[in-house]
């Protein structure tokens, strides 16, 4: 039986379930305890699990993310909450130079089963320093798995497999999605290797993830009204990419637009497009296209911020341009 809850509640339920079932699991980060979580994800968890397992940290991203790595090495299953991806830049050494390298560099002796959660993305008028989308950057790095739930169901279902993963998982929650409502089935466990088709179609593949998924689904709806059948592929795991699902959709629709809130140059969208060219070039009927963020810092003013980000209208326009005469 499915229920309707918010993305935030889904994450909270997933954390509760993990904390209740595995004594090795604990949550740490800035304001996860007394404050209840910056985005209220962990609200109420301190009361249920106590300060040892719901651990407020100093504003020391490098210190506590690195400590999460160490605690994972020491046999715990830490969930480290970095308030936002913007602040994760202060923890890059712990993520990139330590967590991602440990197993390979030690000749397979040490795995790092840490989950690092963070909010990502723009759209709330919080200006340039709080609006980054760096999940595509992180997806460049071997040795870590990158997930970006774009639905309530995945917000509920991706944490358990992330914690079961013996290696580091970075978990990106788009800040615009926390209030999103959606249905969750009783069993929503996700395999962290697979993309998912969210809407079936035949004319064009729209490939996206995370905060751009609702925008892309809205664009597909608008296109449907105009007689264009768009298929929407939710990557949801950004590393490793599920090439099979992407190519299956592209081969069927023969046209593709990639939608990614990252900046265009060197983006995850660029990687997806390169793979399509490598693997499905002769199945294409049109050049590939993408809708990314404009290559500027994200401005504060609402109209300027909207203009900088992928929007349903931009996606619709990109598809129409691709389809030419239609």
């Amino acid at each position, binding site marked *: 039986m499915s229920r309707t809850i918010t993305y935030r509640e889904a994450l909270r339920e997933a954390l509760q379930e993990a904390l209740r079932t595995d004594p090795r699991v604990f949550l740490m980060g800035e304001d996860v305890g007394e404050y209840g979580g910056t985005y209220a994800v962990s609200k109420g968890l301190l009361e249920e699990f106590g300060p040892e397992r719901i651990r407020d940290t100093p504003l020391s991203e490098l210190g506590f993310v690195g400590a999460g790595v160490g605690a994972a090495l020491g046999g715990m299953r830490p969930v480290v909450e970095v308030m936002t991806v913007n602040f994760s830049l202060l923890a890059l050494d712990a993520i990139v130079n330590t967590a991602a390298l440990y197993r*390979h560099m030690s000749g397979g*002796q040490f795995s790092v089963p840490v989950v690092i959660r963070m909010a990502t993305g723009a759209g709330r008028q919080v200006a340039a320093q709080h609006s980054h989308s760096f999940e595509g950057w992180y997806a460049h790095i071997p040795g870590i798995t990158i997930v970006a739930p774009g639905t309530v169901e995945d917000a509920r279902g991706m944490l358990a497999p992330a914690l079961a993963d013996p290696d580091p998982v970075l978990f990106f929650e788009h800040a615009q999605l926390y209030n999103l409502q959606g249905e969750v089935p009783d069993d929503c466990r996700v395999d962290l290797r697979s993309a998912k088709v969210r809407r079936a179609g035949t004319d064009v593949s729209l490939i996206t993830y995370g905060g751009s998924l609702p925008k892309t689904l809205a664009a597909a709806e608008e296109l449907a009204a105009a007689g264009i059948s768009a298929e929407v592929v939710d990557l949801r795991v950004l590393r490793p990419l599920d090439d099979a699902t992407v190519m299956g959709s592209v081969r069927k629709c023969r046209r593709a637009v990639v939608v990614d809130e990252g900046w265009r140059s060197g983006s995850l969208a660029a990687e997806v497009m390169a793979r399509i060219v490598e693997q499905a070039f002769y199945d294409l009927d049109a050049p590939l296209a993408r809708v990314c963020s404009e290559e500027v810092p994200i401005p504060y003013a609402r109209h300027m911020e909207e203009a900088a980000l992928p929007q349903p209208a931009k996606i619709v326009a990109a598809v129409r341009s691709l389809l030419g005469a239609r």
Partner: protein
Amino acid sequence: MSTHVPAPPTGPVRWDKVFALKLLADMVRIRRMEERCAELYGQQKIRGFLHLYIGEEAVAVGALNALRADDNLVATYREHGHALVRGLSMGSIMAEMYGKQEGCARGRGGSMHLFDRATRLYGGHGIVGGGLPVAVGLALADRMQQRRALTACFFGDGAVAEGAFHESMNLAAVWKLPVLFCCENNLYAMGTAIERYESQPDLCVKASSYSMPATRVDGMDVVAVREATQAAAEFVRDGGGPMFLEFRTYRFRAHSMFDAELYREKTEVEEWKTRGPIHSFTVRLKAQGTLTEAEFVAIDAAAQAEVDEAVAFAEAGTWEPIDELARDLLTPPEQPS
């Protein structure tokens, strides 16, 4: 230069003979191993970065001989000595430096990244300060699982200028975690003298600001190092929270094999060499009749023989097949950690 060379340690060594000679032998083993490493580097058997510990041996030997098997060890890229004293075979260390798959990290890490699960050696960290947050987490895991172990984290004076040092010291102190912060102060951050980069060159003053006890130790005196570490380890294990030890020491060789040593006077290096930890310990032991010249010669010969064996082991080692390049990037599903 302003580096003050301390007077040599004096006074009786109150250890039993077996223990005293074991620590002497450990220092000699490190020295002989690394002297051979320098030669092998010249022969291009060892490549990449090679950071020698020569001159600083008393720190690893004294400190690690105060630890227990269930304690964790986090070290830097100047960690050959720590790995050896911790119990890795010299052969597995040498093979690692050769890049052979018989090495302690399958040849993946090389000189800077020695790892060993069996002895709880968590690296071998190449980024200055990078190991400190990891050590805090290892200690947190021990605390949360009610283990009475501690985590000994070694780092140089240069790391004290990194944010990672301050974040880790604060975190360990505010959570009262069993971390033993072991600062190997060799007075230079690569080529920059400490008074040129530290607003407060007294590192114990810095450490004390994190509300943890901090002690300065003569890092050229293996007796002082061992006794201070023993006391600190008891304090940390007994739930006293973290502690900071500053070992004043000196590196006799260049920072790495690429270093032309333009930043310090040869006379300074020569002066410190007169305070060499092996020399001064040997003098003390002989003076009190704990060590004979014949025993010293035997210790040295055994170390040389061990080095020969280690080199033979590394030479005979094999290269990891290239088709294993991606092996151990992620944990295989059939063998979860």
